[in-house]
C-alpha cells in the first residue's frame, strides 16, 4: 500500500529537536521507494539513530510532514500506529532483546504480537534461528549470548514477519566480517522479496559489499544524496546513471 507516486516513505521539510535544544535533524526532504536497499551513513553523532527513530515511528518530528505507506503518520491517531509498526522490522543498535525470554521466544515475539497461533510459530522461528546460525542456542537467554549472537537474534526478530520495510541501526557492528557478510546477504535476500531496507552504518567497507549501493549521507543533521538515492527512479535501478 504505497502512495500514488510509488513512495514508501516521504519526508517533507522535517526537523527534529529534543526539548528546547537545537535541531538534531534539519530540513529533511526525501522519499524512499519500495523494494530499494539504502545505506544511511554519517559520522557518529550525525543524527543517524534519530532519523531511524523517525522512520520506525518511535519519535514524532518537531516540524514537517512524514508519510509512510501513503498515510500521514504525524497526524495519524495513536491507536493506528501499531498496524503500521507491524509493517516495519527494526534492528536496534542496542538489540533490545527481552532479557527473560529465550532466543526462540524473542524471535517469536513479532508473530505472537500479530496473533499467530503457536503451531504456526515454531517452524518459521526455528528456520530463522537456523539461518542466523543460532539453532543450537534457541533456548539460551540473551545474557548468556555473546554480543554477536544477540545481534543475530535481534536481526532474526526484525525479519521474521517479512516486513515491508526493514530499518537496521548498525546491524553488523558486533559480528565478525564473515557473519557481517552473511547478514548483509540476508538483508539482500529480503530486499529481493520486495522489502525496502534501510541500513545505518559507519562501516564504509560494508557499502562495498553491495553492488551499486544507494547511499544517504547525514552530516550534522543534514542529508546529502551522493548516489542519487533519494531521486526517483534512483541511479542504477532503472533510472539515469
Amino acid at each position: 500500500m504505497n502512495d500514488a507516486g510509488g513512495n514508501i516513505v516521504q519526508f517533507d521539510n522535517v526537523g527534529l529537536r529534543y526539548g528546547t535544544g537545537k535541531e538534531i535533524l534539519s530540513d529533511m526532504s526525501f522519499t524512499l521507494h519500495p523494494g530499494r536497499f539504502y545505506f544511511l551513513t554519517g559520522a557518529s553523532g550525525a543524527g543517524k539513530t534519530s532519523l531511524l527513530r523517525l522512520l520506525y515511528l518511535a519519535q514524532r518530528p518537531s516540524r514537517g510532514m512524514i508519510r509512510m505507506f501513503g498515510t500521514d503518520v504525524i497526524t495519524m491517531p495513536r491507536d493506528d500506529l501499531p498496524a503500521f509498526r507491524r509493517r516495519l522490522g527494526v534492528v536496534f543498535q542496542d538489540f533490545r532483546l527481552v532479557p527473560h525470554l529465550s532466543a526462540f521466544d524473542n524471535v517469536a515475539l513479532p508473530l505472537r504480537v500479530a496473533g499467530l497461533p503457536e503451531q504456526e510459530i515454531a517452524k518459521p522461528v526455528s528456520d530463522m534461528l537456523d539461518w542466523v546460525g543460532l539453532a543450537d542456542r534457541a533456548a539460551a537467554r540473551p545474557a548468556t549470548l555473546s554480543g554477536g549472537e544477540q545481534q543475530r537474534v535481534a536481526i532474526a526478530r526484525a525479519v521474521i514477519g517479512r516486513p515491508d520495510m526493514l530499518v537496521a541501526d548498525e546491524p553488523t557492528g558486533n559480528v565478525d566480517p564473515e557473519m557481517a557478510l552473511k547478514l548483509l546477504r540476508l538483508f539482500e535476500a529480503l530486499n529481493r522479496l520486495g522489502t525496502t531496507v534501510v541500513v545505518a552504518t559507519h562501516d564504509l567497507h560494508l557499502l562495498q559489499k553491495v553492488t551499486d549501493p544507494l547511499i544517504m549521507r547525514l552530516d550534522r543533521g543534514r542529508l546529502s544524496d551522493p548516489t542519487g538515492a533519494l531521486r526517483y527512479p534512483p541511479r542504477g535501478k532503472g533510472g539515469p546513471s
Partner: protein
Amino acid sequence: MSAFAAIAAAARRGLPVVNRMRGEQLLTQARLAGPMPWVIAIMIALTTIAAAGALALNNVANAARAELAGGITVQIVEASPAERDRQARAALRFLKATPGVENAALVPKEQVDRLMEPWLGAQGEGDEAIPLPALIDASLDGQATQDRLAQLRPDLLAVAPAARIDAQASWLRPVVSAIRSLQYLALALILLLAAASTAAVWLAARTALGVNRDTIEIVHHLGGTDAQIARIFQRSVARDAVLGGIAGLAAGLIAIVGLTRQFAALDSGMLAGGGLTVMDWLLLVFIPLVGVILATLTARFTVLSALRRML
C-alpha cells in the same frame, strides 16, 4: 502457510491477542508477586467482617423494630398499693376490651422487682419502702404511633387516672440510632478498604509497568497495542486477586463464625435478632468477586493511562 501470510490472516481476523501463557511470560513482573496477594487477602477479610457487621446490625435493628413496633407500656404511677392495683386491673380490662389491642398482660410484681433489683436492692414480700409502678405490657395490631396513643389516652385516664402510656419503640429509638451510626461506620470502613485496595493495586501496577518499561517499548515497536499489553497486566492482576480474595474470604468467614458463636453465647434477646440470613451469606461471598473486578479494572485503567503517555 508462510509466517507473512499467517500475519496477514491474523490481521484480517481483527485485533490479535498475545497468547495467554506467552503474554504472562513476556512481562514477568506484571504479576502482583510478593506481598500483593496477601494485601488483597487482608483487605477482603476486613471488608467481609465489616460487611457482616453491617448486615448483622441491620438485622438487629429490623428485628427490634418489628418486635416492638406495636408494643406499648402502661405504667400506673400511684403510691398507694391498693389504689395502684385497682387502677391496674381497670386499665387491663379497658385495654382488653379496646378494638385494635391484640393482647395485654400485667407484668408480675416479682418481675418488676427483679428488674429493679440491681438499682434498688432486694425488696421483701409486701415491702413498699420505694413504691414501684404497676406495668402493663400490651401490643397493638399495627404501629404504635403517637396518634393512636393520643386516641387511647383519654379513655384510659378515665378508668385509671394514674396511668401513663408510652410506645415501646420510643424507648428503643436511641438504640436504633446508635445501631444506624455503627452501620454507617461499617459502610465507611468498607469504602475505605475498597479505596485502599484500589490504591494498592494502582501502585503495584505502576511499579510493574516501570520494571517492564523496556519490554513494553519493544512490544510497542513490534506493533503491540495498548490493549494487548493492558490485557497481560489485568489477567495477572485478576489471578492474584482471585487467590487473595479466596484466602481473604476464608479468613473473614472463620472470624465471622467465631464471633457469631461468641455473641450467641451471650443469650441476649436483642442480639438474637442479629443472625445472618442466607441472603447475607450470599452477599458476603460476592465480596471477593467485587474485589477481583475492582482490582482488574484498576490495573487496566492504570496501565492504559500510563501507556497513552508513550508513543
